[in-house]
């Protein structure tokens, strides 16, 4: 762990490293931890200078994108400097003919989508939290309903520039979709929650915007019906972009998104309705809730629900839904790939949260997946195993030790106390 202090010389070093350095205010807290300073560098070079100054003075650093969900994960053990990348907000280059976009990490995902949409394209990552930045999206590997067709950030990222804890700027990958020269550092950074390096630029492959789309939804009265509906669709020939389940109190709905050309979508919509039967309905609008998590994102502190991410092999869906029902959890997610989000209501007693987390985790791991508590009131984060068992933790620690030997980047936020 780092041992530096934010004394006058350290403050001066940071002030000369970066155009905009201020004392942290009320709203800059990271899950209850109040940072010392907030540094808002103007470009990659300044990010490097800030990290060099922090390294020289042994200061801890937590990167912030747009701060839409900075509370997720565990609170950092310390945050001398909150490194705010929101000034790096430019979408640098949309090469439509090559189906790629180069962007700075602080750009909002929504702004990037607007730029590429002008060329009839999109970055195939759903915005699950309004206002999220590209860097935060990468650091947390967020995904939404459309991952069934196009995968997640790891599948779309083709180049990355990062600044290491020691202030060295490094890049990996490039501007072409196909590239196997050297290690794929982008994959390592995706989902690293700000613990390995600070992302400053990213290059993505894009997809054409679909000309048409249609949602088919069907109410499912029980676990067996939900499971059967999802299996019918994923093994069918409809090529869905999303297969969602929405679940509370032992019943819910299964929704399927079809995207493509006009006639193609019409034909495939008919295919799905054939598979799901008379109870299904179709619409241009996403089902209520859409890509949003099944909890209140605006809630903070103890008013937060206990937010869970569950992953499981497709054949485990019925068991997962049954366990969610027994645990009193509401659940929503991508049943078509085996990734779902669930919430235990605000105010659920710690004992009950523990029981629910244990039960759901047992089912998920039994089906080749995992359960992570992504956000919760502090008492819950303290009282449950947030990350659960993580295989290969030793190797992960060694990676962390190489990239950030003093453990100054987002200390203790991540798996195994990384």
């Amino acid at each position, binding site marked *: 762990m780092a041992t530096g202090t934010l004394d006058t010389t350290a403050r001066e070093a940071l002030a000369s490293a970066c155009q905009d350095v201020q004392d942290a205010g009320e709203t800059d807290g990271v899950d209850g931890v109040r940072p010392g300073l907030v540094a808002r560098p103007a470009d990659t070079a300044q990010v490097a200078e800030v990290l060099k100054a922090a390294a020289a003075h042994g200061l801890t650093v937590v990167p912030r994108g747009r701060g839409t969900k900075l509370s997720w994960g565990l609170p950092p053990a310390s945050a001398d400097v909150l490194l705010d990348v929101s000034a790096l907000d430019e979408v640098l280059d949309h*090469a439509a*003919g*090559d*189906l*790629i976009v180069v962007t700075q990490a602080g750009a909002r995902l929504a702004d990037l989508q607007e730029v590429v949409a002008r060329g*009839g394209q999109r970055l195939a990552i759903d915005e699950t939290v309004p206002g999220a930045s590209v860097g935060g999206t990468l650091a947390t*590997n967020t995904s939404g309903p459309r991952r069934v067709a196009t*995968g997640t950030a*790891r599948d779309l990222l083709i180049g990355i520039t990062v600044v290491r804890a*020691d202030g*060295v700027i*490094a*890049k*990996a990958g*490039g*501007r*072409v979709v*196909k*590239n*196997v*020269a*050297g*290690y*794929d*550092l982008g*994959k*390592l950074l*995706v*989902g690293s929650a700000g613990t390995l390096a600070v992302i400053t630029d990213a290059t993505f492959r894009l997809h054409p915007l679909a000309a048409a789309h249609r949602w088919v939804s069907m109410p499912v009265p029980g676990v067996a019906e939900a499971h059967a509906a999802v*299996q019918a669709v*994923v*093994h069918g020939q409809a*090529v869905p972009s999303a297969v969602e389940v929405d679940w509370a109190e032992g019943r819910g709905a299964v929704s399927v998104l079809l995207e493509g*050309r006009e*006639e*193609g979508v*019409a*034909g*495939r919509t008919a*295919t799905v309705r054939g598979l799901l039967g008379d109870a299904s309905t179709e619409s241009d609008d996403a089902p209520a809730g859409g890509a949003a998590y099944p909890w209140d994102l605006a809630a903070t502190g103890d008013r937060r629900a206990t937010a869970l991410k569950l*992953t*499981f*092999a497709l*054949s485990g869906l019925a068991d997962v839904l049954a366990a969610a029902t027994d645990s009193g959890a509401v659940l929503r997610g991508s049943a078509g*790939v085996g990734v779902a989000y669930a919430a235990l209501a605000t105010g659920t007693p710690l004992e009950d949260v523990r029981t629910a987390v244990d039960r759901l985790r047992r089912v998920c791991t039994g089906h*080749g997946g*995992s359960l*992570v508590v992504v956000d919760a009131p502090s008492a819950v984060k303290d009282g449950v195993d947030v990350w659960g068992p*993580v*295989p*290969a933790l*030793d*190797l*992960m620690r*060694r*990676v962390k*030790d*190489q*990239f950030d030997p003093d453990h100054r980047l987002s200390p203790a936020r991540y798996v*195994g106390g990384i």
Partner: protein
Amino acid sequence: MGQAGAAIEAVTRRARELLPADAVVTDRARLRTYECDGLAHYRVTPALVVLPRDAAQLAGVVRACAEQGVPYVARGAGTGLSGGALPHAEGVLVVTSQMRAITDVRRDDQRAVVEPGVINLDVTRAATPHGYYYAPDPSSQQICSIGGNVAENSGGAHCLKYGFTTNHVVGADFVTSAGETVALGGTAPDAPGYDLLGTVVGSEGTLGIVTSVTVRLVRLPEEVRTILVGFESTDQAGAATSAIIAAGIVPAAIEMMDALAIEAAEAAVQCNYPHGAGAVLVIELDGASVEVEQEYAEVERLCTENGAFEQRLATDPAERALIWKGRKSAFAAVGRISPDYIVQDGVIPRTALPQVLRAIADLSGTSGVRVANVFHAGDGNLHPLVLFDDAVEGAGDAAEKVSGAILDLCIEHGGSITGEHGVGMDKAKYMPRMYTDEDLDTMQLVRCAFDPQSISNPGKVFPTPRLCGEVPGRRKGAHPAQQAGLAEVF
């Protein structure tokens, strides 16, 4: 016996305890059969070859190597084209050809679990009865192994739409350079923690060895249409490709061959490609029938608008196979028109295709070295085949020069020195042209985390690996270990 000899002796003894007698090879003649992979002009005879039957045996050998500080190299089917599986003269070659079980095919989960020696196409064969297949399809898919695919992050003609190996591998058992076995990823996606699996895929055996691989299976499409289109020039074929992509169509594959490559394929497999074509495109559309039908009409129109003089739709599997035969046999086929050739593998942004092809033609014109072009046009992955006759003095060098200049062209246009064949032994020297010292040092951090002793396939991928524990970025003059006589000049 030197120090290295004693260490190898110790590993050999341990291997004999762990493995059946015929799985430990020390006989000089048998060792020599493993001296090269698909890039045959690099040859090194390994000190020891082992052919473990299962993961436990394999891990045991690696543990012995770790204890003795002996380097080891994994080998799947040895079809690699960058010298990745080139043995180490004082090391062990760990061959996975005896680990060929398809452990599990789980239709309901859309997964298969296979051992690393399993041949790529066998995964699809096992999945097809369930209505599924394994999407990454390198042209070598009848002979290459899944372990090799994982190590190289192999692609194929269909990765334009479906992605590469890395997009289709969700879990693996992995033997670290210390000989420990760990699970990476899982059956489900998004395993918590760093994406070590994503890092291992494409690392060319330099981080460790995979002993079991869990792959995604993809639903067989309802309909497949393969179209062979003849153009007068590569410019026209390139323009048609761009028009298709710009129309928002993502075909399963768009492959291009130029006149010389067509001539070679014709001589080798009589694929009956359009007569007199300066370029052909092989375009494949797949998916739901209604969608494919619509896209087909549009592709046909766009090709005509861009000068296609002949379009042939394969209407049955036999016709489709014939179209693909011409393309998939292209590498071997140039053997018919040239005694020797270099298979190059570079990538450019697709929009730079016309300029780069013209520049390659210029290079060929000025040097007198013939170049046949075969490539994955959809994603800008070029496979120029540089032809020469090694019997002619200086011809090999001239070909090497053209081949290298093509890579420079790729880098100039913001591309890559390899799209799918890997860096291996062959292209390590080009890495500094694509990446800065800082970039390469950062990649070395990963190496040091996984393999601090640098015994897992050392000397590949990176031109000048630094020793782990050394402070990065302060390499001046001779390396300290080198000066102390501990290491050779890398």
